[in-house]
């Protein structure tokens, strides 16, 4: 038996199965629509990725102060952060999105002068609401994760820095935060994939992501399965890439122990 793990028996069987499935799908199913809609599909993919990366970055940046406030902040700040995280984690994402889009979106136009301001073109589109809502959502889950991560860094490591006269901000930047992030990488991987799978919700407020594009294709062509298969494949590949990226990062930090 060769030692290369790719050729383990169960993997060989799975690969053969996948090949048969792909072949039969390619031969027996109807993919004629793909060429006609290729521009839309690429646009949708791009918007899904933009929504994912945008909200993950903003959300993660927010989760740092949220976690820090809960782990070490003064009581009022800690309560505020904890309240926010509980609220976000305790309600459906769809509800948060709709509250923001329909709720806030319907109140905003009544603010005097807002229709004339530079903000208005932004506020009358769907994507800013999707961006804000999903960012807050990621921040809520991330804040909880970061709280645990900050608390998990051994106090002695921070004391060593303190005892040598390091400024609290330098300690945060050089030691506390990097150590917390290092501990939290595997969890973040999962959170990011959850976030990917939450992006289609934005289609409900007329954000044209890959999911919305596929839904339209199905409506217009009356083809049911093929677009859905493509959609599943697209999400699988994105999730796979995320996991690969994190595995790379984890391997780099794993080398240190």
């Amino acid at each position: 038996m060769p030692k290369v793990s790719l050729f383990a028996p169960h993997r060989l069987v799975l690969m053969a199965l996948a090949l048969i499935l792909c072949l039969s799908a390619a031969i027996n199913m109807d993919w004629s629509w793909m060429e006609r809609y290729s521009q839309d599909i690429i646009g949708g993919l791009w918007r899904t990725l933009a929504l994912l990366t945008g909200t993950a970055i903003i959300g993660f940046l927010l989760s740092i102060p949220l976690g820090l406030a809960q782990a070490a902040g003064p009581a009022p700040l800690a309560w505020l952060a904890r309240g926010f995280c509980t609220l976000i984690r305790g309600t459906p994402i769809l509800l948060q999105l709709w509250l923001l889009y329909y709720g806030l979106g319907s109140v905003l136009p009544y603010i005097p002068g807002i229709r004339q301001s530079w903000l208005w073109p932004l506020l009358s589109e769907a994507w800013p609401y999707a961006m804000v809502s999903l960012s807050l959502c990621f921040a809520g889950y991330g804040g909880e994760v970061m709280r645990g991560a900050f608390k998990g860094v051994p106090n002695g490591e921070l004391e060593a820095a303190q005892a040598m006269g390091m400024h609290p901000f330098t300690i945060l930047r050089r030691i506390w935060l990097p150590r917390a992030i290092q501990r939290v990488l595997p969890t973040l991987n999962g959170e990011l994939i959850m976030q990917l799978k939450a992006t289609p919700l934005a289609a409900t407020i007329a954000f044209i992501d890959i999911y919305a594009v596929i839904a339209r294709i199905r409506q217009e062509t009356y083809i049911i399965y093929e677009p859905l298969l493509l959609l599943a494949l697209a999400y699988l590949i994105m999730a796979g890439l995320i996991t690969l990226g994190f595995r790379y990062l984890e391997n780099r930090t794993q080398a240190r122990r």
Partner: protein
Amino acid sequence: MPATEVTASTTQTPVIEVRGLRKSFNGIEVLKGIDLTAHKGEVIALIGGSGSGKSTTLRCLNLLEVPHEVTKLELLGEPVALNPDRHGQLSVADRRHLRGLRSRLAMVFQNFNLWPHMTLEENVMEVPVQVLGQPRAEARDTAHRLLERVGLLDKREAYPDWLSGGQQQRGAIARALATEPEVLLFDEPTSALDPELVGEVLSVMKGLAEEGRTMIIVTHEMQFAADVADRVIFLDNGVIAEQGTAQQIFQSPKNERLQQFIRAIN
């Protein structure tokens, strides 16, 4: 012999001076009025039973713990002002001043507390670069010199988790030396080590003592204390029960608790 001792303590400048140091945790007083003066170049061993307050005393000296009462607190000749907050708890008045003083005192911990996400070399460079603003090249040269001194130059690219406890503690000593501190504080630096690794750390510390560095060492290694300490302080239940030369403390202890303590360890 006594004459030289008197001149030694009168001509030398005190680098740490505390009077009437008291500290409570949750209403229980664990330090009940400690007076301690460390002179330049002096090596002090702090001994005593478990829970007697050795670590707390040491941690009060660089304000990792803030005393709840103290009549005099001078570090490196500079008074440290403590202000009561609205609950009457003391806190450091000038954090910036304290950070400056702390960078001139160094501490070595029982659990080493090296930063695991940095190589040994980066650990040693960190404070000179981030706190003292040294150029990296200069800090790296210093780091190499110090790592060579503690016998770890070949491990400079290693991460702390790759190293044995003894190596980590020697690395932590190199890190502590990187800022050219005027006082070194050690809190049981060998207590977390396997017995066969204790010697390598003690010999590094012995070298430092022979260089004439000011050191305050909390330790359970009595032979080591007897070898290197100019003065041994026996702490019992939050007070200094007896102090003197190693000879006085270990050969002719007067305090009854100290006699018990020494009988117990022999």
